């Protein structure tokens, strides 16, 4: 193996460390998150199919669209993506600090609690115990468990950082710390503070939470992973430390202001809409700082994308990040918003962020760490490559058709001479393409889950967990 050049830039990173990591917590989080990726993938396909065949499973109350959609959203967000990102965090933080994880016991307890949370969420959402706030549908007692689990996660990570051997902290560590702290406040606002408000005031808090669930939970924890795995997987130093600082601190300041852009033209104060638009445009600063840094890191190294599956996922994720974060500021402009808001453009945008970008980062990280934590080889490189292309083609089919369809839908809505039902019928070919793209994405999930599970099982047969 060539010398690991990436570590020269990873200021004060464990280079030839003697620390032996147990990684038990990372294993549990990653493996269970992949199981949910698969299970919730079935639900995702079911609701996509309901757009094409609306009678499908239609007379069973707990399998109706209104019950399955929150299960899909919460399952993918908290069961798959956040759990996987937490697993990756449990892997990378001890390594960047040059010490063992503060407590594997606490970590395992967190993993168990997390699984209890996800299973409780499945039961309550199917039963229709829905609080009625998007992304915050789960009953209060589940929300309380999430808070407890998050505090356990935070204690473990902060204690590890507190014990670190290397004083200088790599950018991934700031993003992890930011994510843990911001998430705490954003989650409390979206799940608990809303209980004490009504009407527009409540909607404003709800959308501050929805926007920042993506912007201040999944973005920083996902970028922490990308900042770690892009240099690692390509064995190349990060291009610029200064640029990563600009990205981080502008993200910390700018993101939280933008919640009201979900209500443009709606019944909320115009001046608040204008503030949200202004700060939405400023989001281009943190995004371009990050994207430029990653692209510049890859300069002269692009040939590695031919063979290196984690790198394929990472760099396509960066491209999707650039695209989705260009869309966001653009459709917060009043003129564009008047066309695309509330259309199928929006799920296209949301899926490009959470599937195309952050799930790609998480998958890349999983492919990178699983052979290392199980101390074996990946079951099949070819299958991993299939996973990439299935998700890439399925993802593009999904995103592109929904943008085109959503834009077209918005134009039709703006012509009141077209009856609403005709705008629904017009979207049917779009929804059909979306369903079949979803089938491809799901095949990618199956390839991913099988590959990782087979790797884990092989490792156990060889030498025990």
């Amino acid at each position, binding site marked *: 193996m060539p010398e690991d050049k990436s570590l020269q830039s990873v*200021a004060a990173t464990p280079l030839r460390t003697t620390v032996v990591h147990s990684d038990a917590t990372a294993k549990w989080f990653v493996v269970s998150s992949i199981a949910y990726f698969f299970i919730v993938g079935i639900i995702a396909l079911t609701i996509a199919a*309901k757009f094409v065949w*609306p009678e499908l499973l239609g*007379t069973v*109350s707990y399998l*109706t*669209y*209104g*019950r399955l*959609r929150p299960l899909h959203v919460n399952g993918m967000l908290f069961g798959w993506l956040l759990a996987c990102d937490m697993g990756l965090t449990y892997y990378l933080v001890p390594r960047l600090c040059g010490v063992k994880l503060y407590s594997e016991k606490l970590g395992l307890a967190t993993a168990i609690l997390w699984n209890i949370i996800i299973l409780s969420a499945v039961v309550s959402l199917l039963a*229709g115990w*829905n609080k*009625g*706030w*998007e992304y915050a549908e789960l009953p209060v007692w589940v929300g309380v468990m999430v808070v407890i689990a998050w505090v356990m996660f935070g204690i473990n990570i*902060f204690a590890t*950082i*507190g014990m670190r051997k290397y004083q*200088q*902290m790599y950018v991934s560590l*700031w993003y992890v*710390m*930011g994510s843990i702290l*911001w998430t705490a406040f954003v989650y409390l*606002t979206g799940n608990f503070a*809303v209980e004490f*408000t*009504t*009407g*527009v*005031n*409540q*909607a*404003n*808090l709800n959308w*501050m939470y*929805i926007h920042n669930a993506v912007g201040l939970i999944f973005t920083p924890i996902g970028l922490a992973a990308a900042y770690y795995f892009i240099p690692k997987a390509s064995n190349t130093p990060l291009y610029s430390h200064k640029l990563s*600082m600009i990205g981080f*601190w502008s993200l*910390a300041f700018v993101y*939280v*202001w933008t919640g009201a852009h*979900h*209500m443009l033209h*709606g*019944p909320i*104060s115009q001046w*608040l809409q204008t*503030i949200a638009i202004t*700060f939405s445009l400023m989001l281009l600063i943190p995004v371009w700082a990050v994207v430029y840094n990653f692209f510049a890191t890859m300069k002269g190294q692009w040939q590695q994308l031919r063979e290196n599956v984690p790198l394929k996922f990472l760099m396509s994720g960066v491209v999707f990040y650039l695209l989705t974060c260009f869309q966001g500021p653009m459709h917060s402009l009043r003129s564009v918003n008047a066309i695309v808001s*509330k259309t199928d453009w*929006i799920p296209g945008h949301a899926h490009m962020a959470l599937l195309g970008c952050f799930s790609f980062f998480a998958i890349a990280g999983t492919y990178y760490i699983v052979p290392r934590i199980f101390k074996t080889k990946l079951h099949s490189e070819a299958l991993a490559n299939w996973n990439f292309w299935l998700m890439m083609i399925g993802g593009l089919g999904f995103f592109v058709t929904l943008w085109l369809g959503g834009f077209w839908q918005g134009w039709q809505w*703006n*012509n*009141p001479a077209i009856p*609403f*039902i005709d705008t*629904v019928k017009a979207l*049917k070919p779009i*929804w059909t393409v979306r369903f079949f793209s979803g089938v491809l994405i799901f095949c990618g999930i199956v390839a991913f889950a099988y590959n990782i599970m087979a790797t884990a099982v092989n490792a156990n047969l060889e030498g025990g967990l």
Partner: protein
Amino acid sequence: MLSKADNSATFAVVAALVLFFIGGILTTVVPPLVDKSWARPFENNDPAKGPTGKLLPLNEQQLHGRAIYVREGCWYCHTQQTRTLLADTKRSGWKGVDSPISTPDEFVYDTPHMFGTKRTGPDLSRVGGKYDTQWHRTHLRNPRDLVPGSVMPPFPWIVNDETEFKSLVAYLQTLGRAKNWRPDNDYER
């Protein structure tokens, strides 16, 4: 200045929280203090100032209907806001009369709010009084019987439970009715 965060976790944490709370507080805590219309229920007796009427809290039956609307996730596909777009006032309108736009004072008693983010089906902010009970019964049992091409799921378990059905319709008939916007009061019951 922020380069201090490279070496000090405490500094990084404090700076990240301070920057976050500036925007957090200015956009969530301050707006309702500045814009009082968010908390003042709609009331207007002067036709010169636009539609007259008064926002009333929902009664027990209507609240039950609202709970069903939340439970079944109707709000994932139906928004409840007539935006400041000409097309929205036409589409929320009825029989040639444009709908008034939605204002914050019409939603003061709403919890959870039902503004919505996605319109797979039409907006419902002014649906109150547009369709009679029999229409809703047929439509909820199988939407395609009345609206060919619709992708709305059927809800037989609501129609088959007379209490639930009546509550849901009672709620739907309140939507948008604080503003008395129909000429001649031609609402369906």
